[in-house]
C-alpha cells in the first residue's frame, strides 16, 4: 500500500474520531473568551499602553505624537547617543510616522495584534495542550483498542504505518493552526475591527552574550509579524506533537499517554524557573517553547540561550522522538 493512501486513511480516521473537532472546539471557545475578555479590559490595556508610549488616553494623540516625533528626530542628532539607543529611536520614529500618516491611534487594538498576542500567550500551554489532545492517542489508541492488528495484517511494513501516522500528525497540526488563525482573526475582528495588517511591529532583537541587542531592530508590517509568530508556533506544535507521538508509541493506554505528556509539560515548565543558575533544564524542550519572545524582544535574556540555541534543542528533540518511536515500534511484540 502506498504511503499516500495510508496517510489519507489515517486522516479520515482522525476526522471520524471527533478528536479533531474537540481540539478545534476548545480552541474556538478559548479564543472567544479571550477576545471577549480583552474587549472588556480594553480601557485598562489602553491605560497601560499610554503609560508606556507616554500618551494620556484622553489627550489628542496626533498632537502628542507629532511632538514626540520631532523630539525623537532631534535626539537622534545628538552626539551623546550610542548606536543602540539611536536604532531604538529610529524604529520608534518610523512607527510614529506610520500612525500619523495612516491616522491610526496607537492605542487601538486590532484583529491582527490580537491574533499575534493570542498565539504568543498560548505558546507555553494552550497550543501544546491542543497538540497533545490531537496526537496523544494516535498509536496508543490503536494498541489499546486492538485495531493495530487490522493494520498489521494487511502486509504493510511497520515503519510505513508509523510514518503515515506521523505525517498525519504534522498535517493535522497545520490544519489546526490554520483554523486557530481563522478563528482568532474572525472573532477578534468583531470586537476590534479587521485592521492592523500594515501596522508596523518592532522585531529583529538579538541576544549577544546574555544581553538583548537592539541595534538591528526593524519595523515589519503586522501581517508579516503575524506570519512569523505562526511559523514559530507551528514549529512548537511539531515539537510537542513529536514528543507526544513518541510517548503514544511507548505506552499502551491513551489516558497514560496524555497524562505523561501533560505532566512532562507542566513539570518541565516549572523547571524553567531555575534556568538562570542551573544549566540542565535549558536542554529540556519546555524551556525553549517561548520562541516568539526572541522576535518580540520581550525576554529576560539568559546567557547562552538565543534563537539558534532554542531551535537546535527543539530540533534535537524532534529527531530523538522520531528515532525512539520508530526504533521501538518496529521491534515491539504485538500479538496478532
Amino acid at each position: 500500500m502506498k504511503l499516500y493512501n495510508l496517510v489519507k486513511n489515517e486522516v479520515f480516521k482522525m476526522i471520524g474520531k471527533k478528536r479533531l473537532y474537540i481540539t478545534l472546539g476548545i480552541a474556538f471557545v478559548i479564543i472567544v473568551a479571550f477576545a471577549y475578555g480583552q474587549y472588556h479590559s480594553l480601557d485598562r490595556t489602553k491605560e497601560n499602553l499610554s503609560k508606556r508610549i507616554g500618551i494620556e488616553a484622553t489627550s489628542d494623540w496626533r498632537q502628542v505624537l507629532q511632538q514626540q516625533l520631532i523630539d525623537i528626530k532631534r535626539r537622534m542628532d545628538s552626539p551623546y547617543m550610542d548606536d543602540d539607543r539611536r536604532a531604538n529611536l529610529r524604529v520608534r520614529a518610523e512607527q510614529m510616522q506610520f500612525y500619523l500618516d495612516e491616522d491610526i491611534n496607537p492605542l487601538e487594538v486590532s484583529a491582527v495584534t490580537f491574533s499575534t498576542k493570542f498565539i504568543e500567550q498560548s505558546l507555553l500551554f494552550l497550543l501544546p495542550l491542543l497538540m497533545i489532545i490531537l496526537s496523544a492517542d494516535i498509536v496508543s489508541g490503536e494498541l489499546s483498542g486492538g485495531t493495530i492488528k487490522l493494520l498489521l495484517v494487511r502486509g504493510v511494513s511497520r515503519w510505513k504505518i508509523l510514518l503515515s501516522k506521523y505525517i498525519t500528525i504534522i498535517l493535522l497540526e497545520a490544519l489546526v493552526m490554520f483554523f486557530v488563525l481563522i478563528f482568532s482573526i474572525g472573532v477578534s475582528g468583531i470586537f476590534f475591527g479587521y485592521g492592523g495588517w500594515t501596522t508596523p511591529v518592532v522585531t529583529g532583537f538579538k541576544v549577544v552574550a546574555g544581553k538583548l541587542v537592539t541595534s538591528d531592530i526593524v519595523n515589519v508590517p503586522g501581517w508579516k509579524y503575524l506570519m512569523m509568530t505562526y511559523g514559530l508556533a507551528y514549529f512548537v506544535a511539531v515539537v510537542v506533537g513529536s514528543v507526544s507521538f513518541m510517548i503514544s508509541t511507548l505506552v499502551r493506554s491513551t489516558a497514560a499517554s496524555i497524562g505523561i505528556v501533560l505532566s512532562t509539560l507542566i513539570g518541565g515548565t516549572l523547571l524553567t524557573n531555575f534556568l538562570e543558575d542551573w544549566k540542565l533544564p535549558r536542554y529540556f524542550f519546555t524551556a525553549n517553547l517561548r520562541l516568539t519572545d526572541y522576535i518580540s524582544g520581550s525576554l529576560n535574556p539568559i546567557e547562552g540561550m538565543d534563537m539558534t540555541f532554542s531551535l537546535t534543542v527543539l530540533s534535537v528533540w524532534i529527531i530523538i522522538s522520531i528515532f525512539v518511536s520508530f526504533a521501538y515500534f518496529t521491534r515491539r511484540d504485538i500479538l496478532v
Partner: protein
Amino acid sequence: MGKNIMWFSILFIVLISLFFVCAGFVMAVNVSTGPVSEVSKPIVQQDLQNSGNSFNDPKTVNVLILGDSIAKGTGDETFRGIGGYLTDNLKNYTAKDITVSNLGIDGLKSGELLEQVKSGSLNNEIASSDIILISIGGNDLLEIRRQTGSNLENAFKEKQSAYIAALKEITKKVREVNKDAFVVFVGLYNPYDDQGVNDYAQFMSDWNHATSLIFIDDIKAVFVPTYDMFKLNMDRYIAPDNLHPNSTGYQMIAQLISRSLEDVVVNM
C-alpha cells in the same frame, strides 16, 4: 466522491497553512539570528574641544544647559526651550553676546547625568561656561508615580536619597571643573497637581526642599522653584502631553531664571 472532495479540500487547506507557517518560520529565524551587523559603540564625543574656545572671551556670556527633557525643551511647540527664551531675556541686561549650549537629553535621570559629568566628557563645556543651568530629577521622581503598591513611602525615600547623593556628586564635580560659574537649578513642578494625587504632591514638596538644601551653602548657586508658578496655571503652561511645559511654560521658567540672574549678568 464526497470523500474525495473532502480529502482534497483538507489537503488544500493544509498546504496553504504549511506554506504560510514555513514562510513565517524562515522569516522569523532570519530576523533573529545571525551576527549583529552594527556593533554598539560607546558614546562618542564629537568636537567638544572646539566649542571651548570662547572661554575667557570677555565679549560673550556662555550658558550651559544640562539635564533632562525640561533642560532640552521638550514640549515647546516653537522648539526654543529655556535656552531660547533665556537668551532673549538676558540680552536686556548685558551688551555681550549670549551663547547657549543645550545638552539636555529626554528621560535623563540623576544617575545618568552623574555618569556624563563624571566621565569628563563635559569638562570643556563646563569650564567655559559662565552660567550652568541644571534640570534633573523629574524622571527619577516619575518612576515613583509609575510604581504602584503599598510601599510607596519607602520607595520614595530610597529614590530620594539616591538622587540627593547623585546631585551632590554632580555639583561637586561641576565645582571641581569650574568654581566661578553661576549654577542655576530648576526646581520641579507637579504636572499632576490638578488630578489630586496627594501623595505625589507631598513627595515633590519634600524632593524640592531636599534639593534646595544642596545649593544653600554655595554662594554662586541658586535653586529656582517653579512649583508655585505652575500649580494654578496648568492649562496655560503644560503641553498637550500633560507632562512637559509648553512654550509659554518655558517662557515663564526662563523669566524666573533671568530675574534671579539679573544682577549677575549686569555685572558680567
